[in-house]
């Protein structure tokens, strides 16, 4: 039932299509005789109890004719769809079979044809083949083909470029086998899904042709032809046009809704279901910690279905301090950053005992205060800058919106900040679009954007992961410099423990949504206590790692955010784990000065 509720349109479409199919099978059998019965005494009548939709010029019952015409209408549409699909798929596969020059010609032809409205192609074909059902079917088939060809081409090109096809080619798998084993199975599904929509289109196209008098000719009739006959009479008896019009509309809607739903179902990846058990009630907020710019207490991020990627996380960052938040993919580190920045996407729920900036509750801060005090830097600087706007304008915006600066003043400040992050010719650069900058320059621009206000907290989420090492080095240096100049507290999120160790003052290690260890960065190598932190460091090949000894590695994998049990989440992968670790979760407790560890086995 849940499926049905989420797919009302799809279910409605399926129902309509089912009715249409039943009608096509039974219609002529049940009403065939009534539809052909000529009644000279009831010519061109409107609605009456005997003829709910009236009669035609030979006194035949229009309701019966509409019900009977369903089969012919659907069969014609089916024929046109099949012609179009087969021709399209053949035309679409040609480029991958033909030599390069011919392939380009085929592609070009398809591209040119796709741009032409189907009805125009259909009319052209109808002129050449003559009026009638045959011409219309061929015409609509011809009109459908280019779309199918384009789809086939796009899909086939995507698959042909896939790594697994390259791998098969290198293994000497013959071309034909690659086509049948790799390409066709992977493009069949979207192509078949497209059939439902193409069918709907064919049905409407044929109805249109018949309605114009260019399609089915008497004595044959389809819905479009019935509408053609009924249309001139709508001034006197509008109901005679109602039947065929409703039939055409219903069929079009049915197939379209069904096609939509099928496409959506194919595109949807498995979706989390069920309701959240609800995050635990956070503890009391307590007094603000003196001297901390950022203070997070018991931060939990939960999604429906018991998915809890961040669990009761607490941390503080002092002014001018860079705290590294390190963990592997799925540890919850990026969601932690998003939660602190107020950017957790729906339907995620964030709860916390305290989330304070400069000792003030973040919820109590105005947008203006937050917008100027908080700076964020993301992984991909190209994605983080708006491609449609000039760099300078994007920077100036903060000053305009939050500080009421005039355009000239805001612009002047933007140029100044671009200079502050050591971008050459900042004035010229401000007038450029992001795509004209290199990766490193873009990341500098994003950092400069953070400097437009008076940043108290900088959240940098994997800011150098997308960059080359030489550029990474420069950006890290710049971050350090900015922190020293502004005295901002900085939360630096990274998967790379070496980068974190190098840049940060303090390191917070996350595993499966929780902090497992917190220690001064300088003591990572010598003083790490948690088995996970140690294993992470031992797994990392460095420039002086002994090449004759295997790297440590960690067996198994991190549990998903819905699969964390009652005990220590790391226990299943831990060499030191005891029975207690499996059942009882260790709290984060003080270990050495400045160090806290959550592990039963660390004494």
């Amino acid at each position, binding site marked *: 039932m849940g499926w049905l509720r989420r797919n009302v349109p799809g279910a409605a479409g399926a129902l309509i299509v089912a009715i249409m199919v039943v009608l096509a099978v039974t219609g002529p059998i049940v009403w065939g005789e009534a539809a052909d019965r000529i009644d000279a005494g009831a010519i061109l009548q409107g609605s009456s109890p005997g003829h709910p939709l009236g009669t035609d010029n030979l006194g035949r019952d229009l309701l019966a004719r509409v019900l009977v015409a369903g089969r012919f209408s659907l069969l014609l549409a089916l024929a046109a769809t099949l012609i179009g699909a087969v021709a399209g798929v053949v035309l679409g596969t040609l480029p991958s079979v033909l030599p390069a020059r011919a392939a380009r010609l085929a592609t070009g032809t398809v591209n040119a044809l796709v741009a032409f409205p189907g009805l125009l192609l259909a009319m052209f074909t109808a002129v050449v083949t003559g009026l009638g059902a045959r011409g219309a079917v061929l015409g609509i088939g011809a009109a459908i083909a280019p779309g199918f060809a384009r789809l086939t081409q796009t899909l086939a090109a995507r698959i042909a470029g*896939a*790594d*697994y096809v*390259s*791998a*098969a*080619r*290198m*293994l*000497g*798998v013959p071309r034909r086998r690659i086509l049948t*084993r*790799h390409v066709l*199975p*992977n493009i069949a599904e979207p192509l078949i899904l497209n059939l439902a929509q193409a069918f709907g289109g064919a049905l409407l196209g044929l109805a249109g042709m018949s309605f114009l008098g260019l399609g089915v000719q008497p004595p044959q009739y389809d819905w479009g032809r019935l509408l053609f006959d009924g249309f001139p009479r709508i001034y006197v008896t509008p109901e005679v046009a109602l039947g065929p019009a409703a039939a055409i509309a219903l069929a079009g809607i049915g197939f379209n809704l069904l096609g939509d739903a099928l496409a959506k179902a194919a595109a949807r990846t498995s979706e989390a279901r069920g309701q959240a058990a609800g995050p635990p009630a956070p503890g009391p907020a307590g007094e603000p910690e003196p001297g901390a710019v950022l203070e997070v207490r018991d931060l939990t991020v939960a999604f429906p279905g018991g998915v809890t990627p961040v669990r009761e996380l607490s941390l503080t960052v002092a002014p001018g301090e860079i705290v590294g938040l390190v963990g*592997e*993919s799925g540890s919850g580190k990026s969601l932690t950053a998003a939660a602190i920045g107020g950017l957790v996407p729906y339907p995620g729920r964030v709860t916390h005992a305290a989330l304070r900036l400069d000792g003030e509750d973040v919820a109590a801060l105005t947008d203006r205060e937050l917008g100027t005090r908080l700076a964020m830097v993301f992984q991909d600087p190209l994605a983080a800058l708006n491609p449609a706007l000039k760099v300078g304008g994007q920077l100036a915006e903060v000053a305009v919106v939050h500080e009421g600066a005039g355009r000239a003043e805001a612009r002047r400040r933007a140029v100044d900040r671009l200079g502050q992050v050591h971008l050459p010719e900042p004035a010229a650069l401000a007038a450029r679009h992001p795509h004209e900058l290199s990766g490193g320059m873009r990341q500098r621009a994003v950092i400069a954007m953070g400097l437009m206000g008076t940043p108290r907290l900088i959240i940098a989420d994997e800011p150098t992961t997308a960059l*080359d*090492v*030489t550029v*990474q*080095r420069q950006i*890290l240096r710049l971050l350090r410099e900015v922190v020293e100049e502004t005295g901002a507290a900085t939360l630096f999120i990274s*998967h*790379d*423990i*070496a*980068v974190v*160790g*190098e840049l940060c003052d303090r390191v917070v290690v996350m595993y499966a949504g929780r902090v497992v260890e917190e220690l001064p*960065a*300088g003591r*990572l*190598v*010598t003083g790490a206590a948690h088995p996970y932190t140690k*294993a*992470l*460091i031992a*797994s*990392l*090949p*460095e*420039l002086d*790692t002994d*090449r004759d000894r*295997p*790297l*440590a*590695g*960690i*067996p198994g*994998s991190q549990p998903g955010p819905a699969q964390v049990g009652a005990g220590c989440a790391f226990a299943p992968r831990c060499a030191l784990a005891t029975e207690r670790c499996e059942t009882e979760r260790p709290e984060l407790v003080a270990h050495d000065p400045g160090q806290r560890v959550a592990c039963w086995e660390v004494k």
Partner: protein
Amino acid sequence: MIIKNLSVRFGRFTAVDDVTLEIPDGQVVGLVGESGSGKSSLARAVCGLVPHTGSVTGAPRTQMVFQDPYASLDPRMTVAATIAEGAGAGEVARLLDLVRLPAELAGRYPRELSGGQRQRVAIARALGGNPELLVADEITSALDVSVQAAVLNLIRGLREELGLTMLFISHNLAVVRYVADVVAVMHRGRLVEVGPAEQVVGEPAHEYTRALLAAVPRLRR
């Protein structure tokens, strides 16, 4: 195996510019470079996947392992079918064992595997082709460190066991140094330095190699 005067051009852009490189039998040559240096184009050219000029001699059978473990396996084929495509069905169990994967994974589909497991399947598939040369293009850059370690160990183990000849490509100098006997440094389509791994890392001759080395993040000991 010798790559001689190999160039790859895309239109007016020269991705690989006249590269000559020898890969001695039974050795691992590590190729390091930043994005856009042409290292992946070189890999694809060696495998015959992109048009190129120049010659590649001495390795008639080349296989490749790709960077993205999520895109390199056909989603509609089981592990067994994937491996059997090159090696034949009889070899599947042996190859799975070789890459330290349990035999019961044979019936699974890629979506049921972790990233590290997928990468092992891709390695098994490549080994099934009985290659004289195995090209590994950034095979650990999509993996977590703890998983990367296991794959690197596997690569080193395979070299010992099978005497595999290999071109190992990565942007990460430390990773390359760990698995390779010879390190080649690529910059803007050209090879700027080639030498024994310890020598290139210990006494870099080229300015660019030195810059690259200086940029590698290190843990403070």
